[in-house]
């Protein structure tokens, strides 16, 4: 019988997570073995039929990315696991690396075999010292077992090794150009738009995914495309790691089949278990800070799959879901959201650098009910300005939570304005 939760099936079952033999006893490296026994075409077909899309929030098709890296000729190709995971409310990649790092490493090794890449990096937050030390030990153990290095599994020419690149904390490094700058020793600011699969790290073909996506690869090849895809929907195979936070009864990490009802994820005792005080939810924030805020009454029929959410102009994002009850005023929630974007603006684009500060200030003013007539229009204009003028996603996405919240709870925004106060003329910018 196939476990319905393959990504977390080893969590807590291995005493030493760096131990390769213990990993192999729990179906570890069965995925890579399947890959090595098949032809290149068969392997790519498995990836296509399994319908694995990126779990990092960018929604790309992993088969397409692998194929592009494979076909783009270069002396050195790179596999990068971006496990920096700076999105508030998200802790799935850290959980994977803390509980089953070999699954991520096996996934990266499979990706290297599929794309003929030689060098891998795990980009991980440097302040998690214990996690990095465990990762270093895991990589060393893999080298000792000939699972990293030259001629892996005695396959001539299958050379692949992994290094650790430490992040010092910058949300903008989710943007590939910023990530490559940071990893090369420069500050992690975005440059121009890059196509990683063509000209990525050091301008070479590069596959960039998060830890969860890589951990899916061994599962896909071990189970086979059909069984893997059947864990999810016809368009999106597998399961998804969901981080439930806020006022759900059971906060934490859950592995859910793709295609489950969103209300089941929130309310089923197996998952969120409803709200902490038993009252109905007021809103959820879907996919991370950059996602949409949805009133609870609008999610009753929503299916948690990329295609179903996309049809509603929503995304799974990183898998973060924050839920709040009537006890939470929407402005109290949005102020820290705006602060996050202000703090994480890299400062390159003036609209984002200055605009995110103005947005934060405007929301604080409304929160204190000190707004004046015209403030709501000014706020909307500023959000629109930042979203349209910023050159990378950090500024571009700021409109998602704020505009969706303004649409869902207009009365709470209006309550932040003293409508008897003198109208202040709009300041041009």
């Amino acid at each position, binding site marked *: 019988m196939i476990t319905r939760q393959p990504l977390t099936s080893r969590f807590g079952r291995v005493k030493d997570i760096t131990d390769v033999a213990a990993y192999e006893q729990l179906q570890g490296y069965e995925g890579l073995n399947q890959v090595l026994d098949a032809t290149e075409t068969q392997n790519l077909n498995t990836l296509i039929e399994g319908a694995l899309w990126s779990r990092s929030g960018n929604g790309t098709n992993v088969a397409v990315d692998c194929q592009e890296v494979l076909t783009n000729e270069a002396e050195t190709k790179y596999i990068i696991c971006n496990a920096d*995971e*700076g*999105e*508030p*409310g*998200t*802790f799935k990649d*850290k959980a994977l690396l803390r509980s089953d790092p070999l699954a991520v490493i096996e996934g990266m090794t499979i990706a290297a075999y599929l794309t003929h890449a030689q060098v891998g990096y795990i980009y991980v*937050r*440097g*302040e*998690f*010292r*214990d996690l990095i030390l465990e990762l270093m030990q895991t990589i060393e153990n893999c080298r000792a077992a000939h699972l990293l290095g030259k001629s892996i599994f005695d396959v001539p020419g299958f050379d692949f090794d992994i290094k*650790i*690149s*430490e*992040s*010092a*904390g*910058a*949300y903008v490094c989710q943007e590939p150009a910023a990530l490559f700058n*940071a*990893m*090369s*020793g*420069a*500050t*992690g*600011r975005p440059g121009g738009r890059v196509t990683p699969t063509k000209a990525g790290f050091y301008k070479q073909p590069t596959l960039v995914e998060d830890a969860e996506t890589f951990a899916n690869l061994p599962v896909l090849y071990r189970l086979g495309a059909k069984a893997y895809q059947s864990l999810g929907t016809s368009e999106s195979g597998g399961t998804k790691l969901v*981080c*439930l*936070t*806020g*006022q759900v009864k059971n*906060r*934490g*990490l859950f592995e859910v089949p793709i295609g489950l009802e969103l209300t089941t994820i929130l309310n089923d005792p197996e998952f969120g278990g409803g709200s902490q005080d038993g009252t109905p939810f007021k809103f959820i*924030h879907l996919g991370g*800070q950059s996602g949409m805020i949805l009133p609870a009454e609008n999610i009753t029929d929503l299916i948690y799959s990329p295609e179903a959410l996309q049809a509603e102009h929503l995304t799974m994002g990183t898998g*973060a879901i*924050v839920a*709040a009850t009537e006890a*939470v005023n929407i402005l*109290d*929630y*949005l102020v*820290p*959201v705006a*602060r*996050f974007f202000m*703090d*994480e603006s*890299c400062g390159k684009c003036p609209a984002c650098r200055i605009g995110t500060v103005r947005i934060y200030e405007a929301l604080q003013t409304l929160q204190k009910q000190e707004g004046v007539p015209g403030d709501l229009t000014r706020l909307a204009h500023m959000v629109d300005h930042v979203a349209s003028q910023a050159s990378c996603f950090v500024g571009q996405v700021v409109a998602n939570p704020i505009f969706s919240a303004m649409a869902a709870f207009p009365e709470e925004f209006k309550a932040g304005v003293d409508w008897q106060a003198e109208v202040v003329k709009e300041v041009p910018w």
Partner: protein
Amino acid sequence: MDNTMTLTKKVALIHSFEPEPDAAVNILLTLQQATKDAYVDEASARLVADYVGLTLANIYELVSYYPALNEQPQARYVLTFCHSAPCAVSDNGFIEKTLHQILGIDEGQVTDDGLLAYQGVACVGACEQAPFIKIKDHIFPNLTTDKIQQLVADLKAGHFDDIL
């Protein structure tokens, strides 16, 4: 710089990395975490710059850009708490006020004895344990005002010297 780390040890630590620019942040973070005052001083920054082939300005650009790298000496214990939205919903907000009351200092300041400071951060991935305080790699979860008072008292008494 930290008096527990000799120049020889510092150089040995730096030389345990590859002498390439892409190793700069790895070295700076490792060096910072290995030192008592948890910051990158100018002498260390010069050593790293020379070793990886960057300028001193390049190194300080990294240090000033990234929140995890410090330009100034840090308190013995920096109590970090999350000020992002998911934790705000989980009532993390009282932590800053409580620490301000107990320690009598503002965020980012250090107590006179150099022992304690507190700092809000974006997210440390411990959302399900909120309200929490993180000190180095250690999470103190599900806090109340009383538990924070006890934690500060324990830190002052040196009860966590072996794990922090």
